[in-house]
């Protein structure tokens, strides 16, 4: 919504095509293409640490976009996104090892399997909303998590399950450098798909359901269908993200796909900006880099002679954890509309400089 409100004056569209475009101006389009082009050379310059952070941003970003479609665009809520992410991870590993399906086919298949599971757990959305829906999806989190612990045929139980690397024409993408390209491709592909989805009839229906479900229904939007579809698409994204996570690590353990992960996904989309696709990516980048930046700060302290004593290092560890929480709170107070909104304001400031109104 924010992007609509903050459009600069003098921006008049005369056709639907102009209104629907993914990139607002030519410059943005060329710039995006340039960035993606440059990103292709990153493995030649950056070391594995940066690449692994990018890969993390990629798989978490894909999953977070799914949640933003559900929460930001359709106005539903899900507290089970972390479990869906995990389901995608196990499903892809399971399809690959049990049926010998090539991994690059398993990843989309895992997406569809997760979609089915997500729609099943999204069914209450047809009847309930708000806090009640939040609690209903919380059940999904617990049920699926418990399922991971018990279903040895699927998840390997407490031993976990192994996931082979992505292989294409005999080439295994099993290093950071090579997997980076998979991550980059998936990220670009899924985000363009997300943008296009929002420009379509279904995407507009999602927004209508969010903005005023009664009006939407009167206009002929089938509420149940679109709520359920939104859950499906959201889980599809979560499943793809999870599958990439599995094949990157090479091993999936039931540890980690907890309620905490679900909350973290929510935090990402709220910080990034609800209902904004590029905001989602900003939120993910922020949440992935924040602990690393703070860790770096702790690291510099540790390298000094006075800082490298256990008392200081431990104290800093706690401060680091608290700082993450603090930054999130401050964000919600000072920038409740997310990074996407802030970005828009910065852009406007420069656009009208020095005569902003």
């Amino acid at each position, binding site marked *: 919504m924010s992007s609509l409100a903050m459009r600069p004056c003098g921006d008049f569209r005369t056709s639907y095509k102009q209104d629907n475009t993914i990139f607002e101006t030519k410059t943005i389009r060329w710039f995006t293409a340039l960035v993606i082009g440059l990103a292709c050379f990153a493995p030649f310059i950056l070391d594995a640490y940066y690449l692994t952070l990018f890969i993390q941003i990629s798989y978490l970003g894909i999953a977070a976009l799914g949640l933003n479609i559900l929460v930001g665009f359709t106005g539903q809520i899900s507290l089970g996104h972390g479990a869906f992410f995990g389901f995608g991870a196990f499903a892809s590993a399971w399809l690959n090892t049990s049926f010998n399906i090539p991994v690059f086919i398993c990843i989309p298949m895992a997406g569809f399997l997760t979609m089915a599971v997500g729609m099943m757990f999204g069914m209450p959305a047809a009847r309930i909303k708000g806090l009640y829906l939040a609690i209903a999806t919380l059940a999904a989190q617990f049920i699926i998590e418990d399922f991971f612990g018990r279903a040895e045929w699927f998840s390997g*139980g407490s*031993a976990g399950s192994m996931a082979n690397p992505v292989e294409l024409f005999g080439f295994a993408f099993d290093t*950071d450098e090579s997997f980076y390209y998979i991550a980059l491709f998936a990220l670009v592909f899924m985000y363009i798909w997300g943008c296009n989805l929002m420009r379509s009839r279904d995407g507009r229906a999602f927004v209508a359901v969010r903005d005023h479900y009664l009006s939407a229904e009167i206009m002929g939007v089938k509420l149940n269908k679109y709520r359920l579809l939104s859950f499906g698409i959201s889980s599809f994204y979560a499943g793809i993200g999870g599958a990439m996570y599995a094949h990157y690590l090479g091993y999936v353990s039931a540890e980690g796909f907890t309620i905490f992960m679900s909350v973290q996904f929510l935090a990402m989309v709220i910080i990034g900006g609800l209902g904004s696709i590029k905001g989602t990516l900003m939120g993910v980048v922020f949440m992935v880099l924040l602990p690393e930046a703070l860790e770096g700060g702790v690291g510099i302290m540790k390298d*000094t002679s006075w800082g490298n004593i256990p008392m200081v290092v431990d104290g800093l*560890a706690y401060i680091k954890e608290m700082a993450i929480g603090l930054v999130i709170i401050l964000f919600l107070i000072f920038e409740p509309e997310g990074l996407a909104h802030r970005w828009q304001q910065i852009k406007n400031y420069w656009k009208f400089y020095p005569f902003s109104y």
Partner: protein
Amino acid sequence: MHKKLMLTTSIAVMAMGVNSQAVAKDSVFVGHLADMSGPTAFVGKVYADGVRDSLAYINANGGIDGTSLEFETIDYAYKVPQAIASYKKWKSRKKMVAMQGWGTADTEALISFVAKDKVPVYSASYSGHLTDPTGKNPNTKKPAPYNFFYGASYSDSCRGLVQWAADDWKKKGSAGKPKFTHIGANHPYPNAPKAACAEYAEELGFDVQPPVVISMKPGDFKAQCLSLKSSGTNYGYIGNLGGSVLSLVKSCNTVGTEIQFMSNIWGGDKKVFEAAGEGIKDYIFPTMNPFWSDDVPGMKLVREVSKMSDSEGKKERLHHYIRGVCSAFFMKEAMQWAKKNGGITGENIKKGMYARQNWVPEGLDGVCLAANWTPEDHRGVNQVNIYKGNYNGGDVKVERVNQVTLERRIDWLGY
């Protein structure tokens, strides 16, 4: 503006100074992942202190035969993404040769990476499936060739406890089949020994009851205690740790169960007993070390190590701390072997782990149990010390009951 400029310059100068320092000397890097602020910090901090103090001690006393040991401790708060990022950072920037890890989360997430990068990992995740480096056992899903841990696996500890329980039952002269129940959350860590232990218990003539699930977080477990009571369980294995164990002991004490608790290695230490209070009565738990107050020759070194972070030497350390010390010293001696046999690389350190039989690190006699690692069997330790804890009205008493030796059965490998 001026101030900002000065600040950035000084930071840059500082960073450069640090860099040039690092390049100048002959050193190897060891990464250390710890959980000091996350959900497992209850014992994670204790263990991490043991590892960290040992690394500092090794470094202060000549390093690895002259090669100094660079290390960095990162508190990853039990979050997998942070663990992976730290690992990649160490691997790509600091040429890490070995890593000291912590729990199930980081260890399992890194299994594939460390195997590919050939970085031996010493962790405190004692899952049985990490002990099969070549995948000899058909049950092993993922061979873990570069994973080591000091101590018996969760499954083996539980088997040792069951073995003790069978003797205990005979000694007491009780009639009939004793009943055995697994108590723990449905989570990889408490679940790790569930099937293996139940199987062995059945073999020894126990009547194995369906497992009782209690949450990993502290809570009111009276309902679960009542079901333990009504099933008439004689021996209960606790798979959880920390606050959850406290709650269980307290709840069962209120309910009045007549159960003999036997916990996993993280579920019993003085801190737990002091906090749990009256419910701790003949509480059985395994350890891989003697206790702080025990008088064995190796404790002298452990006390020296402890002084690295507690210069007055007053702190009383838990047995998890001592396990951390053993883990670090086994690594150190494998590195020494590697240095003599082709240089300190991950691959050579792994070979160094197989170089000795009945191996006890120098100066730690009586502290670390004798270990045997082989290329096909990573069950380093097959002995379990069984201890008994009593609250004793506030004066906590811990005594050794027995030491159980488990056979190295081939069908137990990796399971």
